[in-house]
């Protein structure tokens, strides 16, 4: 594990996370939004795995187990998101979030 230094890893993780957030901000297609969210989520999972190997005080949940749980959680979240967008698509005929701006001000 010493191959990847902390700054180096953080740069990787931050890049991954940044790409995800950038996607969330710029994508109008709901599916792409979901994908962006998952990319960012992956940065989180990666973090947990990496820090699990870090020699800080360790007690409680291990990083690996958290990572596993989060993978499952991410799947649930995507499922709910898809359900919502399906219903929206049925009513509006689009999955472009820019078209759903009825509620404002």
């Amino acid at each position: 594990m010493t191959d990847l230094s902390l700054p180096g890893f953080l740069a990787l993780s931050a890049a991954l996370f940044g790409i995800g957030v950038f996607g969330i901000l710029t994508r109008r297609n709901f599916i792409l939004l979901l994908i962006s969210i998952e990319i960012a989520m992956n940065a989180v999972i990666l973090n947990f795995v990496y820090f699990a190997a870090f020699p800080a005080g360790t007690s409680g949940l291990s990083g690996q187990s958290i990572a596993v749980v989060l993978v499952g959680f991410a799947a649930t979240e995507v499922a709910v998101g898809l359900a919502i967008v399906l219903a929206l698509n049925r009513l509006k005929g689009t999955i472009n979030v820019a078209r759903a701006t009825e509620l404002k001000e």
Partner: protein
Amino acid sequence: MSVSSFAGPFVPELVLLAGTLLIFLLDVLKVRRIELTGGIAVAATLAALGVVVADLGFAPLAFLATVPASQIDVAPAAGAAPLFAFTSFGLVFQAIFLLATFFVALASVSRPSDERGAPIFYGLLLLATIGMLLVAIASDLIFLLLAIEVVSIASYLLVAYTRKDVRGLEAAMKFFVIGALSTVLSFFGASLLFGAYGTTNLYLIRAAGTAVGYPVLVLLGYGFLIAGLAFKVTLVPFHAWAVDVYDGAPDDVSAFLAGGTKKIGVFAFFLVFLGPVLAVGAVGSSGYGLFGGSVALGASFQITLGALAVVTMTVGNVLALLQKEMKRMLAYSSISQAGYMLIGIAIGTAPALGGATLQVFAHVLMKTGAFLVVGAAAAIGVGPLIDDWRGLGLKRPLLGVSFALMLLSLAGVPLTIGFVSKFVLFSAAVDAQGWFIWLAVAGLLNSALSVFYYARVLKVMFFDAAPAPAGAPAGSVVGGAGPPALPLGGIGYGRAASLAIIAALIVAFGIYPQAVLGAIQSAAYHFVTVGA
């Protein structure tokens, strides 16, 4: 740990779970009468509430207690890292959450009895409530975040449960997107903290204080966490979704979101940030201090949270000032109220946390009630604009009086719970001395500002002449083809009861706040001294 001793403390959650399963089971069996499903939900909630109150030491219900008093407010053994812990503070919040669910569940019974979505609604409601109860006993950051996610996911679905309402779906979509983003931020923050502390256990993190290997991770991690959790609490500028969602969601769901789920964010804030707020001393003399310097941990958290609180209450109030739609006005008011609650954690003393908790309690009554009134008004054909409410106060005294009480309480008029909660909260701010007195000043000035839009609604309801009845005579349900009229002129017994109870509690606790304040304050005291 035996099964019974494991299951015992979770009786409230288990009761609700049983209720949820029962409701879904009945749905599968095509038994969808709202009286039945609603009744199950109400009963389950009441039972859970009874248990929680008993656990809090309410003597008349002592026979229901499931958590031995010796297990409450006990610090874990050194080095132990429990996922959950029973604190009286958490129990207080559980009671508050259950109360919100109870009001919504009771009021929702008064919906058309053949509504197909009823079982889903109630099932999700209870599911979300389970998540809320879990939040209140969390002592691990990941456990906490996952419990919050349980609530979130249930709430996304609740907003969209009708599946046929474009506004509801749009709201759900926005809710989901921002919610998912916030979740990612929270977990990312948690992962950084994990990197810094090597644990996600809140006891251990708090015990570590400023003794951290990688301070910059701590600061960034907490920054992400604030942003992620702020989503739930609707702090400015993380609030934008809330207005659209409260507006677009079904009225009763809005009541639950504003009155119920929002409060888990508040509790999470208390839980997560009490550590850093109370941390004395500097971090960052070595390691990855961003500019090679060091940071006064506690003070900078206090100032950050304080600034957030002030910005939130101010922006919320200013935006509510000229708002024309009732639900959006209430949504903005809800945002500003979140600012008041945040004062508690920005200060971090037991009085302040207690005051903020009282504010949470008050807000549950006021805001849940207010949205429930909106639901009732919608049910009898009142439009979404504030101006549509002209003359309603005199025409429908129940709605008028109870709504007036809620608004007066929101505005902080004496002899209501809202007044007491603000008074205690701001007293606590002054009590903390130092610059916190300015938080009290800001809060009080904001409450002065807020009076305007509340007063405006009162004026419209009581002083302005009612609009000429368009078509349907007043009091009957609008639209002949719609569902059959409910009793009490379209309001229904359940909703009427719910509103009446809320109104009574607003006044009762306004006159005699000691009934709740004593328990809340001692819980807050334990919370600060023992920790999560």
